[in-house]
């Protein structure tokens, strides 16, 4: 056995990339480490998070939803949907834009699935005057036309990706190809806790603000920590963000909810942790949906942001260690939860976040009075309205 290498979570993670990118990853690691220890970096980032993004985001106690879940159960939402641009993604893109500036890189590339990370990247590029190119699968561009236009309004160029499954996985391939070609001038703002080291650590560190706030808000509001913290997992950035503050609180149950798509038995799902096995994909070793020959299998989810056959390597480690329980809910359950939260609380969740809500709803009656269930509401659902209407047969 060899000793664990830096940038690994147990056996997972690593830097499985073309040699061309190694110097850039080493530079990024150095700049990230230096920034973490630099009060001036945090002062600037915190000010932007407050004045530009609108942090801290509130924790909202549900009323009618909680009543449905069980008597005396507190169901609360960490409102990342209220961030500027409508999701947690901007926590990371702001941080990485500051890192890019420190490296003197003026051109930014990104991949996007649902479009939320693309929008958050286009936003910070507009704010800092950086060139922005976003790779997006042609299929996702069709599903999320409004987000494409939002990115273009902010000056980004959205490049349709027509290879492979035309979704997030192929957009990530294409962004990596761009980076291999333009690595000396370009920073790749990866949108989740995936990819080669140091990206999973960087994205977690910038999303950790969610957990830090939520933990303090719980102590202030209830005088104790939540019983259970629930978040959806595609690549897993919002989940790592909120989980990171609670990992050492052994009494807090942590639940990651993957997309079961049309059902785990259907073969059409995105449950990398639930149904995949370890493999190397997009630069790191983690759980992966793949066939017996190591070919990556297309994922499926009604939610474009969860439609990814890989998952962050730290989640792989947390699954094996048993610290986090990973579950899955179907497209149908997520759509029902989308409708339920909208009707009962006046909050339209992103379809991604609706998976976390659906997991809580699936356990109605199993909760105990006094339980505090904290759901990370990672994004708002405005982007999904047209899609939901199409799926439910409503005419717009």
């Amino acid at each position: 056995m060899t000793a664990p290498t830096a940038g690994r979570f147990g056996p997972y993670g690593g830097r499985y990339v073309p040699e061309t990118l190694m110097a850039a990853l080493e530079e990024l690691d150095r700049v990230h480490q230096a920034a973490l220890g630099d009060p001036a970096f945090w002062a600037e980032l915190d000010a932007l998070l407050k004045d530009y993004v609108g942090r801290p985001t509130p924790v909202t106690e549900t009323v009618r939803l909680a009543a449905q879940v069980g008597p005396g159960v507190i169901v609360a939402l960490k409102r990342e949907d209220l961030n500027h641009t409508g999701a947690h993604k901007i926590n990371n893109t702001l941080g990485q834009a500051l890192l890019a500036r420190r490296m003197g890189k003026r051109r930014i590339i990104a991949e996007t699935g649902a479009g939320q990370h693309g929008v958050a990247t286009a936003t910070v590029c507009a704010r800092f005057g950086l060139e922005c190119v976003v790779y997006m699968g042609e299929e996702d561009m069709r599903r999320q036309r409004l987000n494409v236009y939002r990115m273009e309004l902010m000056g980004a160029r959205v490049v349709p990706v027509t290879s492979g499954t035309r979704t997030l996985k192929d957009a990530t391939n294409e962004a990596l190809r761009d980076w291999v070609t333009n690595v000396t001038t370009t920073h790749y703002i990866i949108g989740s806790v995936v990819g080669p080291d140091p990206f999973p650590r960087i994205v977690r560190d910038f999303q950790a603000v969610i957990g830090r706030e939520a933990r303090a808000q719980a102590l202030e509001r209830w005088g104790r920590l939540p019983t259970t913290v629930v978040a959806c997992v595609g690549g897993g950035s919002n989940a790592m963000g909120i989980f990171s503050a609670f990992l050492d609180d052994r009494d807090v149950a942590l639940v990651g909810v993957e997309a079961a798509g049309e059902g785990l038995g259907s073969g059409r799902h995105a449950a990398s942790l639930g149904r995949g096995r370890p493999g190397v994909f997009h630069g790191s070793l983690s759980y992966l949906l793949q066939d017996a020959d190591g070919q990556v299998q297309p994922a499926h989810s009604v939610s474009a942001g969860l439609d990814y056959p890989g998952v962050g390597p730290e989640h792989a480690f947390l699954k094996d260690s048993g610290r986090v329980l990973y579950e899955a809910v179907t497209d149908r359950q997520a759509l029902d939860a989308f409708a339920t939260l909208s009707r009962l609380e006046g909050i339209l969740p992103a379809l991604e976040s609706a998976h976390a809500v659906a997991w809580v709803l699936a356990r109605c009656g199993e909760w105990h009075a006094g339980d505090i269930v904290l759901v990370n509401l990672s994004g708002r659902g405005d982007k999904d309205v047209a899609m939901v209407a199409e799926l439910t047969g409503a005419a717009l």
Partner: protein
Amino acid sequence: MSEHPIAARWRALRGGAGGRRAALIPYVTAGFPTPRVSLDALRAVVAAGADFVEVGVPFSDPLADGPTIQRSTQAALDQGMTVAGVLEQIHQAALPVPVVVMTYVNPVLAFGLERFLREAAAAGASGLLLTDFPAGADPALEATVAASPLALIRLIAPTTTGDRLARAARGASGFLYLISRLGVTGARDQVPADLAELVGRVRAASPLPVAVGFGIGTPAQARATAALADGVVVGSAIVEALGAGGTGAAERLVRELAAAVRDA
């Protein structure tokens, strides 16, 4: 211990009649345009003058490859090509020159690393080149390959730092593969102006032969590269020729490239 087939081949190239000459190293995607044609193509490129052959094992997410090789590997997968199928092709082709298997890490891991190394060697392969496996990425995997009969071919990029170059050179065998420019695989118009300097850097770090690839597609480019390096790798242009004109077209191109390399 007998000499490794790759080292023996370089020695023959250095000591042949007419003095040292550079090697031509064509790349063929196993299973493209069809499994039957790619088996013929392996034999044809050797008949046309290849000194080594790189055989590509298709992977669903070839993030270091440009459109030509992406399309070829996808077509191969669509026709059911597998890791075992590629090894069977190498075995059947029974080539008189060393074969280097080129792929990504995941198909090899899924097949089983030790099983892959054993079966690839038994099929007649002499080297392994993993595009997404830089020096230091996975010391355990590296040690397992080093203990096998397959040479571990290392890629060196224009962005490779001095520290990394030294590290890659230490763990490499067979030859070093210098990526001539930033970017993915695929033919380009020109040989980069700084290629002589890049080759010089690699030579200063290692006594291993240096082969240059990425972006070389024409006889003129092959000739210019052969004047600087020990080997010239041509991939996308051959794959393109195979796709458009079948084995005959690929064989004609390799013949021209081989003449150009010998002429340098």
